[in-house]
């Protein structure tokens, strides 16, 4: 019997609000333990939460980007369970009336458009971080993360392969980065993805028994966990075993999932409406205001980039991988650079420099206008492409205008016919052998002579002119 895998995702995103979701404490990852805490996020007696408006704005932006309906009236609820990483022993979350619901998301898999249903996106608060490294019998709790703005996105079980899930997660991350709502840093836990996985015989309509996999630290981990679960579940079914609904943990070192908790032992969270907060009422005007502030989203931007600049699908994809790179590219073109040349330079040499420097395109010294100016210098024959490659690192380091670097280092291309003719005649005299070879029909000997000419001019000779002169002189005599 053939089986197929069915996957739905639960994704937690830490929303990049300046302060935590219910108090004024700074939302910052790298800080000494318990340095961003107050009576509210520590759950001190009598303290009350107040909703962060920026959290609502950014969550609605995510909802709109995922084509969700935005609730005109939504509320917060208390999710009750005891654990030391929760200062109140309940988490303020949303139960039956999420802020965003019934959406969908289109993403590309190998050039094909796929679509996934978005069940809901709801607001909640993050928990503290338990630290069990203190010593035997001692645990510490860092409450800096407690109360950090968290958005939980839940998808429909619409995914059918590990590869498709991987593509969706990357697209979702790209979208969140475009929206500027999260840094999506998986290592720091600001993006956490948990797959719900089940299998069923191909053709069967009913879903199988699902397992939920936790503790996955990367998208490739999600992919591997799905592949592992698919095999495990199919194997069990083929042996005639009955699967149970359970939560399993991903062991990245061994590449396996291990049982954590069954449905029977699941918590009764005793949700009820949070009486300390007033309902969230996002009216049409508020929603519209957020809708108008949304940036162009990745797929649309990629499509437009292809069309507007006559670029290949591949080039457009690389350029629009991040909003910042796409912005850089468009600024460069706006400053006069031909689109294809700008693409080559940005995705080639410039990207390599950025990667080597572990920098970010938003904070490099070389501006899009400077890059356009450099491309302009090649185009008008002032410098050769070779020289351009040489001066780009200088521009990257110093932020100097390309023209200044060219002038300071005397790198202007020699295109003057008489000057070059003198130099080339000299070279022909010095290398009678290759000259003979050429004249006896060995055309490749010309390459050597071009090379010698460039070397003599320290690369400044205009290669086109060198060729012209060589042709002329070699055929002359």
């Amino acid at each position, binding site marked *: 019997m053939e089986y197929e895998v069915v996957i739905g995702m639960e994704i937690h995103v830490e929303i990049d609000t300046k302060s935590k979701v219910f108090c004024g404490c700074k939302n910052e990852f790298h800080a000494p333990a318990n340095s961003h805490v107050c009576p509210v996020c520590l759950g*001190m007696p*009598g303290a*009350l939460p*107040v909703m962060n408006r920026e959290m609502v704005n950014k969550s609605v932006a995510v909802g709109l980007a995922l084509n969700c309906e935005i609730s005109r009236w939504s509320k917060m609820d208390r999710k009750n369970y*005891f654990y030391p990483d929760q200062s109140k022993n*309940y988490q303020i979350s949303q139960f039956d009336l999420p802020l965003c619901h019934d959406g969908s998301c289109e993403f590309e898999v190998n050039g094909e458009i796929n679509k996934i249903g978005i069940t809901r996106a709801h607001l909640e608060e993050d928990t503290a971080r338990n630290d069990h490294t203190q010593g035997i019998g001692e645990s510490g709790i860092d409450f800096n993360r407690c109360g950090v703005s968290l958005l939980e996105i839940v998808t429909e079980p619409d995914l059918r392969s590990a590869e498709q899930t991987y593509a969706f997660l990357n697209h979702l991350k790209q979208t969140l980065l475009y929206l500027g709502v999260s840094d999506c840093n998986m290592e720091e836990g600001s993006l956490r993805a948990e797959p719900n996985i089940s299998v069923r015989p191909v053709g069967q309509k009913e879903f199988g028994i699902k397992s939920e996999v936790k503790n996955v630290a990367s998208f490739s981990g999600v992919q591997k966990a799905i592949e592992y679960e698919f095999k495990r579940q199919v194997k069990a079914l083929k042996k005639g075993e009955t699967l149970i609904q359970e939560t399993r943990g991903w062991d990245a070192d061994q590449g396996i999932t291990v049982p954590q908790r069954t449905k029977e032992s699941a918590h009764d969270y005793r949700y009820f409406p949070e009486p300390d907060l007033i309902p969230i009422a996002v009216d049409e005007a508020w929603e519209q205001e957020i809708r108008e502030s949304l940036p162009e989203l990745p797929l649309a931007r990629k499509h437009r980039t292809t069309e507007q600049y006559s670029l290949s699908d591949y080039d457009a994809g690389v350029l629009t991988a991040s909003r910042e790179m796409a912005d850089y590219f468009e600024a460069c073109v706006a400053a006069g650079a031909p689109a294809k040349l700008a693409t080559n330079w940005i995705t080639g040499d410039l990207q390599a420099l950025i990667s080597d420097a572990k920098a970010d395109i938003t904070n490099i010294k070389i501006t899009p206008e400077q890059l356009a100016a450099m491309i302009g210098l090649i185009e008008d024959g002032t410098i050769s492409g070779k020289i351009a490659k040489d001066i780009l690192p200088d521009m990257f380091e110093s932020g100097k205008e390309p023209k200044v670097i060219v002038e300071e280092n005397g790198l202007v291309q020699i295109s003057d016919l008489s000057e070059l003719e003198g130099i080339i005649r000299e070279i022909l005299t010095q290398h009678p052998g290759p000259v003979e070879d050429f004249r006896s029909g060995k055309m490749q000997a010309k390459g050597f002579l071009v090379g010698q000419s460039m070397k003599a001019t320290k690369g400044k000779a205009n290669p086109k002119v060198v060729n012209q002169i060589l042709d002329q002189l070699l055929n002359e005599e």
Partner: protein
Amino acid sequence: MSQEIIQKTAHELHDDLRSGATTATALAEAQLAHIDGHDDKVKAYLETWNDEALAQAAAIDDALSKGNDPGLLAGIPIGLKDNLVTTTGTTGCSSQILKGFESPYTATAVQKLYDAGGVMMGKLNMDEFAMGSSTENSSMQKTANPWNLNCVPGGSSGGSAASVAANEAVISIGSDTGGSIRQPAAFCGCVGLKPTYGRVSRYGLIAFASSLDQIGPLTKDVEDSAWALNVLSGKDPHDATSADLPVPDYREALGKDINDITIGLPKEYFTDSLGDDMRQKIETAVDVLKAQGAKVVEVELPHTNHGIAVYYILATAEASANLARFDGVRYGFRHPDAKDVKEMYTMTKSEGFGPEVQRRIMLGTYVLSSGYYDAYYKKAQKVRALIRRDFDQAFEKCDIIATPTTPASAFEFGAKSQDPLEMYLNDIYTTTANLAGVPAISLPCGLTEQQLPAGLQLIGKPFAEADLFRVSHAYEQNRGFDMGHAPIA
């Protein structure tokens, strides 16, 4: 002389302080001496802040001598219920689980009192976590009723009511979740106000039931209640449920006629369960209002008989979550013998919480549990909406609803503590105002045959505290008798 000074009201002392008839220091010293002389019998205070109070009083005197106005309640001795957090002293909710807790911040309402120049005398006893109607559920001490030391002061703000009745504070602050200001005010013969939900910030009030809790003053007369509400009210950015509405000067409502007022008598409150003595007290009080020009009509509050049930479902549900944070992890009592996290939770809570608190946490946990939620919590929410609608409809016919505050006057220690249900019935006339979120006040309306105070409850429209004060003041000024002072005062 000192006996006289501590018997005065805040508005009288306000004038004395400005005329030079007394000083804040003299007043604070007299107040502390009076507490020292009486509280061994009443046991209202859990702790007094002598040094801090005298330092505050000295600062007030200094300001007054320089011609500055240090605020509406400058120099007035004020007592605080033990569930209002303060950076001064400790805040323990009269519970072993929080005993000795030093708060890193001060409740907004208390800060407003400080800002108005109030001199804080200390913390007052209460039923543990405000759960109770007699203050017998305090894990710290038993507070007595100054009118009869064998009787309870009511609860949960029993210490607050007793301190005012015994002249151990000029004003005390309490909290009211289902009657916890009004019932002890009625038992102790003082004026107790539960403002509209949202009128006073709850930030820093240790929550019992968040959707019902409201802070309010217990005072010697109606005018002091209006003065106190002036200070306590207003929007607080730290409390999302505090109302963003202007705060009128409630003092302006006092002394005006009540010819335009219609008083509604809900027939559901005047049934057989109300004793004849108490019924007669209320009827006499209503006659006073009638004589002052108010119209009186009968109104209906048809869902009244569900009030207690709805209240005990919703209040315990919220409490079960609100009290979850007392787990021994971050503050308060942690059982020393616990060997792991689960033991820390169970042993800490089992030993730290008293029996009534444990009973209510279990009740609340039960009504929220999967499979019971719809039958209890959800249904109770629906009935709460009906109770609210009852009031809306009644207020189409009247401006103020008059009822007894309690079915009977104060009872003796131990009389009801063995039967939780009978204890709960003490709140039968008071819980609905919390469920509907409307303001209500209890006024002394004479002494019963047992020589114990009786309480008249007036309930107003949301945020119509000014009307409540106007009618209350008209009653107080014209009731034709002086309540006098409690024997221990």
